[in-house]
């Protein structure tokens, strides 16, 4: 008896030492490969982007130290600065429309969320998330062309006067590109919000009804506050999609007409690989990364705050 008890306790002791090992060297062996890939293909390039941004370099010859001059140009050169402004304008379409419309739609279809129609809709609304953005860009370029379906529909309802090549018009190109983004993101937001609504305690709604609250009051004082976290997620995902947009614009307008739909992502691509202004491209890249973090972090804090 005593022997087996002693054996067990020594067994336990070795197990404890092993667990301590697992927190040290052995455990680190598990982290090392992931960290290596991350360091070589993400952390190192990030550091290099910072470094390049302080030089003037054509990518081939010698580079010249220019300090923060490239950053100065990002904020003073109208072409570069406009791309940042455009990205923020795209937020209206990529974020505001899908989130607000998604909330309205989700609230309306909440009661029929389990019906067969809603299940079919779930699949259909996800399609834009599954296909390549490039394909969405091609399809929409054609829809928005001067002989496209959008103009056909407008003519049909008697608005023939406003028809135009939406993506080729200085005044409408940016909103048109924004609508493509809204199309891609609306389904995702709606479904995320709907999933969140299914977790709200129905008793809350009953109590509100008893207090005589109307549908609008219910929406403002129960639905929206309960969905704080889901709304934060939708806003984060869509804001990043707007700031870092590339695929859709590359395919549909290439930044034109003029510079009306130029965004930082595309500008970086042109600067680095067409105009051979690696330093400028890198400075813009640093600004873009900083902007994304500056937008994503407060939204996260806001969501966490509500949880506590």
């Amino acid at each position, binding site marked *: 008896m005593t022997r087996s008890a002693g054996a067990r306790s020594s067994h336990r002791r070795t197990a404890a030492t092993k*667990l301590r090992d*697992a*927190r*040290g060297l*052995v*455990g680190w062996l*598990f*982290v090392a*490969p*992931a960290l290596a*890939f*991350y360091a*070589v*293909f993400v952390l*190192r390039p*990030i550091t*290099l*982007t910072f470094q*390049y941004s302080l030089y003037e370099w054509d990518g081939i010859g010698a580079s010249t130290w220019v300090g923060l001059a490239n950053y100065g140009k990002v904020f003073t050169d109208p072409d570069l600065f406009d791309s940042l402004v455009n990205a923020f304008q795209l937020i209206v379409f990529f974020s505001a429309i899908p989130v607000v419309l998604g909330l309205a*739609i989700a609230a*309306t*279809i909440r*009661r029929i969320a389990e019906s067969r*129609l809603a299940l079919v*809709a779930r699949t259909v*609304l*996800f*399609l834009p998330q*599954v*296909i390549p953005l*490039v394909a*969405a860009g091609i*399809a*929409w370029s*054609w*829809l928005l062309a001067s*002989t*496209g*379906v959008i*103009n056909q529909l407008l003519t049909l309802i008697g608005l023939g006067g406003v028809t135009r090549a939406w993506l080729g018009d200085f005044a409408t190109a940016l909103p048109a590109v924004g609508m493509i983004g809204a199309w891609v993101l609306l389904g995702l937001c709606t*479904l*995320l919000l709907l*999933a969140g609504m299914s977790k709200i305690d129905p008793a809350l709604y009953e109590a509100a009804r008893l207090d005589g609250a109307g549908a609008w009051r219910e929406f403002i004082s129960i639905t929206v506050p309960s969905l704080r976290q889901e709304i934060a997620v939708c806003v984060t995902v869509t804001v*990043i999609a707007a*700031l870092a947009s*590339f*695929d859709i614009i*590359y*395919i549909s307008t290439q930044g034109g007409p003029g510079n009306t739909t130029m965004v*930082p*992502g595309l500008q*970086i*691509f042109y600067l680095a*690989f067409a105009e051979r202004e*690696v330093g400028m491209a890198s400075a813009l*890249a*640093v600004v*873009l*990364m900083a902007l*994304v973090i500056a937008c994503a972090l407060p939204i996260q804090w806001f969501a966490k705050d509500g949880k506590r």
Partner: protein
Amino acid sequence: MITAWREAWVGRLLLVGMMAVTLLPFLSLFVTALHPSGAYPAGLAWPDDPQWGNFLRAFEAANMGELLKSSALIVLGVVPISILLGTMAGFAIGHLRVIGARVIFLLFVLGLTLPFEGVITPLYYQIRDMGLLNTRWAIILPLIGLFMPFSVFWMRAHFVNMPGELSESARMDGANVWQLFRRIHVPLAMPAISSLGILLFLWTWNQFLLAIVLVDDPTKRTMSGALGAFQGQWGTDIPLLCAGSLLILTPTLVIFLIFQRHFVKALLQGSLKG
């Protein structure tokens, strides 16, 4: 009663309307693809003589066979390795809680929102210096690194909720850390792993920026990158472009429809966690 009934009908109408808007671009691609090659059809109009052969011509023009093979190879290179490395790191950070786990986790989280455009320029020179430009490795290796923040984040979220007793009893039976990982924790993590696999598959298959910057030859790119080249080449032949676009988006569509439940679940969870 009457309001509930009306609400349900408004809801249904709204749903149908949304589905129509979602499907409109697909319908337009399809109808346009059937027009005679080189035509400039007006809006949604069913052609007098549907040219089903356009799909075949687009298949040949886009070199679809090669493209499918190339995308499959890239996915096979990226997804299994990313899953393995992400699961191992997530296990060590979330369950073993290695020394310094918090710091290392924070380091990975920093990369979660990174726009790929932020690193594409140095990545180009790095890949060039490694002699990998214009090979599939130019897409595979960076993507593994770029997917690490999400993979580690995702798997850690799973492992952090696994009870410690599970491992202690296995350790008593003399299992080493690798056996503990392989025999006990990986099987239990399968739901999280398969969701991760679906998301990584989708993100790899649809990756565009890396493909157009790092690989010139469309037949060595991802499907998405190849579609970009196809547009450049056939941009003026609208019906052919539409047929090609439809063909290129078909594989993800088919896989989505087969695994749709998993997909919807994975995508919803994926954006919630990320």
